[in-house]
């Protein structure tokens, strides 16, 4: 059968959700307000206990609501449940706390003009809220405009974000399966795609706006999930390093450098306090330059003041990175518990 051209591909949006009463309505509204209409918007309600079901009912037949028989407690279980209802050629995955830019489908679909592209990663922007989300916005800007751009040149996209991913539907049916054995399903899928040699595109014009943790506690929980999931996936897919040199390079840069850097940050003050202060000042220089870059790139002047808390958060991130390394790699205490961040209205 001849492959469809990009503009002929129909798109299904899938939103797994659990207790998202405060955010889900705006998320769905953004999915329905697209310049290129989705064939269907599927909301997988993981047996919410709040008013999510009532909010979903207000959309009537504009959306398809699928409910899991009981709470699965895990996003990938909900996604797997929803997959059997997908009818489109492309599946767009997003989260209940995320808003899609009105041109998201139009832009992400363009990535599939290349018939070799089987999945695409969009661009995530953090919604403005407080100093923590400001740091995250800076982190996203640096990660997506430097690291990910370089990765796309190398042909090795490290991760397709769960909030802004698109996949040809048939690869899920024919090649990918949900293992539910890691806590970051987006990283698991990306590594699987690399192993099977599927091309992943990066599209910075396909933008989503997401709600990031606004309290230190929820920030720590999210970082624990991300880094814990990172270590879990590294153990599970270590063989991808042997497939392509670029993959080996990226894994080394992420995990080995991460480990060395984290250790260094905590060893320096023990050796000599002056070294630690020097390191702190040293990191302030690139952090300030990058915050100026991000303020211009994201058109957010408030990011100009993100450099100081950003450097402080580097220490927190390093601590969590080491903590999860010890837990997941050394102690083999695998954590598969999904955590639910607190939400504020979008």
């Amino acid at each position, binding site marked *: 059968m001849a492959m469809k051209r990009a503009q002929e591909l129909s798109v299904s949006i899938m939103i797994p959700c659990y207790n998202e009463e405060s955010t889900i309505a705006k998320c769905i509204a953004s999915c329905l307000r697209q310049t290129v209409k989705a064939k269907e918007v599927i909301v997988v309600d993981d047996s919410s206990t709040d008013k999510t079901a009532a909010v979903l009912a207000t959309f009537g037949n504009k959306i398809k609501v699928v409910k899991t028989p009981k709470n699965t407690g895990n996003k990938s279980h909900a996604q797997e449940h929803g997959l059997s209802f997908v009818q489109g050629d492309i599946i767009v995955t997003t989260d209940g706390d995320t808003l899609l830019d009105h041109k998201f489908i139009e832009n992400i679909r363009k990535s599939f003009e290349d018939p070799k592209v089987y999945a695409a990663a969009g661009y*995530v922007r953090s919604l403005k809220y407080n100093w923590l989300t400001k740091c995250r916005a800076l*982190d*996203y800007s*640096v*990660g997506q405009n*430097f*690291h*990910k*751009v*370089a*990765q796309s*040149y*190398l042909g090795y996209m*490290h*991760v397709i*974000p*769960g*909030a*802004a991913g698109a996949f040809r539907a048939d690869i899920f049916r024919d090649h990918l399966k949900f293992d539910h054995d890691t806590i*970051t399903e*987006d*990283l698991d899928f990306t590594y699987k795609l690399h192993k099977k040699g599927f091309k992943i595109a990066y599209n910075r014009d396909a933008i989503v706006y997401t709600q990031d943790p606004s309290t230190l506690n929820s920030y720590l929980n999210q970082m624990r999930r*991300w880094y814990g*999931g*990172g270590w879990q996936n590294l153990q599970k897919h270590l063989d991808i390093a042997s497939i392509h040199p670029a993959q080996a*390079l990226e894994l080394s*840069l*992420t995990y080995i*450098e*991460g480990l060395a*850097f984290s250790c260094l940050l905590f060893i320096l003050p023990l050796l000599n306090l002056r070294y630690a202060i020097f390191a702190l000042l040293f*990191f302030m220089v*690139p*952090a300030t330059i*990058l915050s100026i870059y991000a303020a211009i790139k994201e058109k957010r002047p408030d990011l100009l003041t993100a450099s100081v808390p950003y450097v402080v*958060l*580097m220490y927190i*991130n*390093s601590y969590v*990175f080491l903590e999860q390394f010890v837990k997941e790699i050394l102690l083999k205490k695998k954590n598969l518990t999904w955590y639910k961040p607190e939400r504020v209205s979008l």
Partner: protein
Amino acid sequence: MNPVTPFIGLSFIVHLLIIAYSKLAELAQKTFIKIQTWRLQ
């Protein structure tokens, strides 16, 4: 989504160099195409 790495270290420098190299390669390719087109005219 997972951040690539929270650190401004070696990975940042390596990625910056990769971008610079790729941009330069693209520029060189475009220049060669222009020269070829000009020669054919």
